């Protein structure tokens, strides 16, 4: 068991550690910091303490012999007979990690009609492809995949296993992690190898407001999921590379507990998530009447309107227009933010925008911290001027 130690002799009761704790686990008692059970031992407070009064004592764990575990594995995911881009992105990343670890990148593909895809999988960096061909995977049911994954992990001892953070990946990966009693880090945005050869996994938490770096030192495989588009994919021309195909054994599945009745493909309806130009409005537009002016402006640009959460809360706009962590995540070419202060939940939803023009009366508004162009002023007055200019 790990323990967060606070040296009460050293502690000066300054409270910096309390402020630094993202988990609300610290408080002051008798002018000294104390820790409660919400602590996850992330170490933020250690860094914050001006007098070095805090440290973590971790129980010395018996070092297991983990040398049997090797290679980086990637689960290849398909949709409608096409390999998903995220799988290629993982192969590319895997290759980079493998170069550092001097090991192989192995792809696991379970599906129907997969032979024609091998070439591509190799091109994106796999050394070996483990595959099983069969129609039982078409339904994409967890309980079919889990048995194969479990088998592969137990027979081949992967050191690292990467999954796409797709709806499917986010369901099967934790199930597998629990089956193998190992660690899993979801939605990693940075993967690297540390000095001890461990996978360093960095992921956003608190709606993207905080990044956490996580390791899995004593359990194998080290598992991670990565969202689509976060990593880059590119092919390698490497003719000398050893390429191997391994057909894995069929596994008998007994008494299935889930059954797919129907699977419906729906093309996404046009929403602000897909819009190229977005005009977003916040409370700073002053009054509900001003939305008309914004609409006029948006029509002129062929833009969609998005709003910050307070506007939805007060009923000026519907939820479908809300941008941010609890609304839509957007990635337009141009975002014009009007009277938006930029609560971090909101900023989490707009980080994909290519160009952001922000107009706000408050020069300190946090929206400016992510904007490309900062305009301090009354957004409605300026907007009227811009409308005039663009219509001329």
């Amino acid at each position, binding site marked *: 068991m790990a323990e967060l130690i606070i040296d009460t002799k050293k502690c000066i009761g300054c409270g910096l550690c309390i*402020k630094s704790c993202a*988990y609300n686990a610290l408080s002051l008692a008798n002018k000294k910091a104390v820790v409660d059970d919400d602590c996850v031992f992330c170490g933020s407070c250690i860094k914050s303490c001006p007098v070095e009064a805090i440290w973590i004592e971790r*129980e010395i764990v018996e070092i297991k012999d983990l040398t049997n575990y090797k290679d980086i594995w990637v689960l290849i995911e398909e949709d409608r007979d096409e390999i998903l881009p995220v799988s290629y992105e993982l192969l590319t990343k895997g290759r980079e990690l493998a170069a550092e670890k001097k090991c192989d990148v192995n792809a696991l593909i379970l599906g129907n009609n997969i032979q024609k895809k091998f070439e591509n999988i190799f091109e994106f960096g796999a050394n070996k492809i483990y595959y099983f061909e069969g129609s039982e995977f078409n339904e994409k049911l967890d309980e079919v995949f889990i048995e194969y994954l479990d088998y592969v992990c137990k027979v081949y001892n992967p050191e690292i296993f990467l999954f796409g953070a797709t709806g499917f990946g986010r369901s099967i990966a934790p199930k597998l992690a629990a089956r193998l009693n190992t660690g899993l880090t979801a939605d990693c945005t940075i993967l690297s190898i540390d000095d001890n050869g461990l996978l360093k996994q960095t992921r956003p*938490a608190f709606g993207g407001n905080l990044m956490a770096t996580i390791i899995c030192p004593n359990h194998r495989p080290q598992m991670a999921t990565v969202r689509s588009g976060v990593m880059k994919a590119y092919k390698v021309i490497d003719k000398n590379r050893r390429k191997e195909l391994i057909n894995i054994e069929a596994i008998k599945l007994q008494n299935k507990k889930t059954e797919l009745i129907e699977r419906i493909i729906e093309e996404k309806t046009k929403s602000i998530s897909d819009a190229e130009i977005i005009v977003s409005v916040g409370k700073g537009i002053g009054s509900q009447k001003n939305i008309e002016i914004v609409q006029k402006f948006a029509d002129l640009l062929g833009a969609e309107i998005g709003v910050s959460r307070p506007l939805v809360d007060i009923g000026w706009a519907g939820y479908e227009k809300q941008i941010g962590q609890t609304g839509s995540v957007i990635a337009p070419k141009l975002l014009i933010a009007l009277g938006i202060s930029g609560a971090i*939940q909101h900023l989490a939803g707009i980080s994909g925008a290519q160009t952001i023009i922000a107009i706000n009366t408050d020069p300190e508004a946090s929206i400016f*911290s992510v904007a*490309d162009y*900062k305009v301090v002023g009354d957004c409605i007055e300026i907007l009227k001027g811009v409308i005039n200019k663009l219509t001329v």
Partner: protein
Amino acid sequence: MKIVVCVKQVPSSNEVKLDPKTNTIIREADKSVINPYDKFAIEEALKIKDNLKGEVIALSMGIPATEKILRDAMSRGCDRSVLLSDKKFAGADTLATAYTLSLGIKKIKNVSLIICGKMAIDGDTAQIGPELAETLKIPHITDVSEIIKISENEITCRKINDNGYSIIKMVLPAVITVVKDINLPRLPTIPGVLKSIHASFEIINAHNATANINRIGSTGSPTQVIDTFIPERKNVAIEIEGDIDKKIDFIGDIIKEIMYNGRIDN
């Protein structure tokens, strides 16, 4: 039918700022609330109870103060609640949490359905549901947007996929995780609030849960957080200064430029 809803206490806001002077993190939240996703889980359980009768039990792991949100869950219609609370549970990652919750469910006995919110807004992992199911060796469905049919031993759900949805039938007992807006959570009633003050609230510690000490808390957690930091934002914005007309001109030009370039790209 016995239904367990897993709930988590989270900070009321997940805003985190960096103190520029001390370079440390400042939390904006001053209150603890029930994880917003879990409200939909509670409502879904109550809806099933409305139709099939039975018992809805709110289950959480956390510090003793979590009692408050469990009482809140009971004010909405949960019949009782169980809190797994022990210093030894502290520092648990998702796997250790799932194991600990599974002990609670075994204690409750004969549970047919476990409902979790899709994810918690502080951790954002969405792992507890599947890990809990696997720990209990039962099936699960994530991202459920509708329960189409449910009986004592079978459930049919609509599950949201990345590009549509699936209708899946599953044998009970099982775990589902529900998406936001699967329902409209009801508000507590006066009798609900009054009942919740004295409703059964049970605290289970590690010993009573017969926990394997190697599978709980930080000891039972394969993963370790070794660092947390505030993500870097983009570089400083270009400030457009001058009088209003200058600002208007500048903005107009940028818009024209971007839109024009956009057309060429396409």
